[in-house]
């Protein structure tokens, strides 16, 4: 923990790949104070993503189709707070990764490769299906890790904590089915050093 104070003060802070996770958690907590207090808009992602999905569907189903859909009628695509927030998220991660020299093309991540091999097709198909399930589930639950897990839980919402605990349980079961109990030689540290070599 002494390391925290040491690294926080030093010039490496801007360029280092990894900030202390507790400091990052405190940062997200303070960011929550700001978004609640200043813009009255809790951290959240998937409500906005549903609007973006509507924008993608619009050329096919038409503007009328969007307006008459029971869901999109409430969440029509628009340049609103949520959309600008996600654009900011993209650029925050981009600038962060550029400054720490962590920008790199990754098709098959280390942990996946160790278990399932380096076939891009396999990884990309599963990523697509996974993204689909994550989004569908998040919308049914009323929010994702941000809207329910963070914002909901910190407001002591029943929905937030129910979401957090349930998704962790099925996530654990999924990881167990996919990776089994056997140990892995690829841990975050070696995955990281691998990335540094690429960068």
């Amino acid at each position, binding site marked *: 923990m002494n390391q925290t104070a040491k690294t926080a003060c030093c010039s490496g802070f801007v360029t280092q790949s990894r900030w202390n996770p507790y400091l990052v958690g405190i940062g997200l907590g303070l960011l929550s104070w700001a978004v609640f207090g200043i*813009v009255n808009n809790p951290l959240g992602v998937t409500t906005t993503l549903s609007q973006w999905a509507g924008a993608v569907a619009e050329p096919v189903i038409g503007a009328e189709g969007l307006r008459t859909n029971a869901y999109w009628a409430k969440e029509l695509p628009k340049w609103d707070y949520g959309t600008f927030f996600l654009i900011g998220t993209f650029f925050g991660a981009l600038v962060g990764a550029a400054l720490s020299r962590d920008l790199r093309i990754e098709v098959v991540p280390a942990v996946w490769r160790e278990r399932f091999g380096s076939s891009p097709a396999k990884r990309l198909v599963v990523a697509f299906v996974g993204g689909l399930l994550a989004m569908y589930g998040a919308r049914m639950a009323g929010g994702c890790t941000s809207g329910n897990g963070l914002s909901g839980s*910190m407001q002591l919402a029943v929905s937030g904590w129910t979401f957090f605990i349930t998704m962790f349980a099925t996530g654990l079961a999924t990881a167990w089915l996919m990776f089994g109990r056997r140990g892995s030689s690829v841990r975050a540290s070696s995955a990281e050093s691998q990335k540094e070599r690429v960068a």
Partner: protein
Amino acid sequence: MTLPITGNASLVLAVVFGFIFGLLLQRGRVADYNTIVNQFRFKDFTVLKVMFTAIVVGGIGVLVLHQTGHAAYHIKPANMLGVVLGAGIFGIGMVTYGYCPGTGIAAVATGSVHALVGFAGMLAGGILYALSFSWVNEHILSVAALGKVRLPDVTGIADWVWFIILAAIAAVVFFAIERLAPTQKSPVGQ
């Protein structure tokens, strides 16, 4: 200046807050497939550390803001069947995708191609949800719908007691994690 800020000024702030969010996710290493999947394998506790700290720190601040009249709550309805089913699907999705929606967007920005493909999957999921919404709304969201309830409402335990309990749990869990699997020191600054 009157709060909350709305209109165009709030859109500028949206970019600023989003930027900080993305930066924190990237530097917190949670915009990394390996970190997220290894959390669910109990090989890396970064996600838990980040989220639990954020919930306790954020929650205490938001509670104070709310009690002093400076913030409104935004409670999502506890449609229990929908939340349990949805969260269950979400957990499967998060581990197979390797990201959650927010960290997925951050990962796309750092160059993750599979995060981008999964992002397309998320848009497809959003379309499917909208198309199936009428049915889901009628048959799932209406079951065990408790409304916008909070833990203090259903337990009778006061807000501040909840945060003392949560902070105590966090302290114990973090202490145990650091004993068994210490936070990795940054490669820089060593």
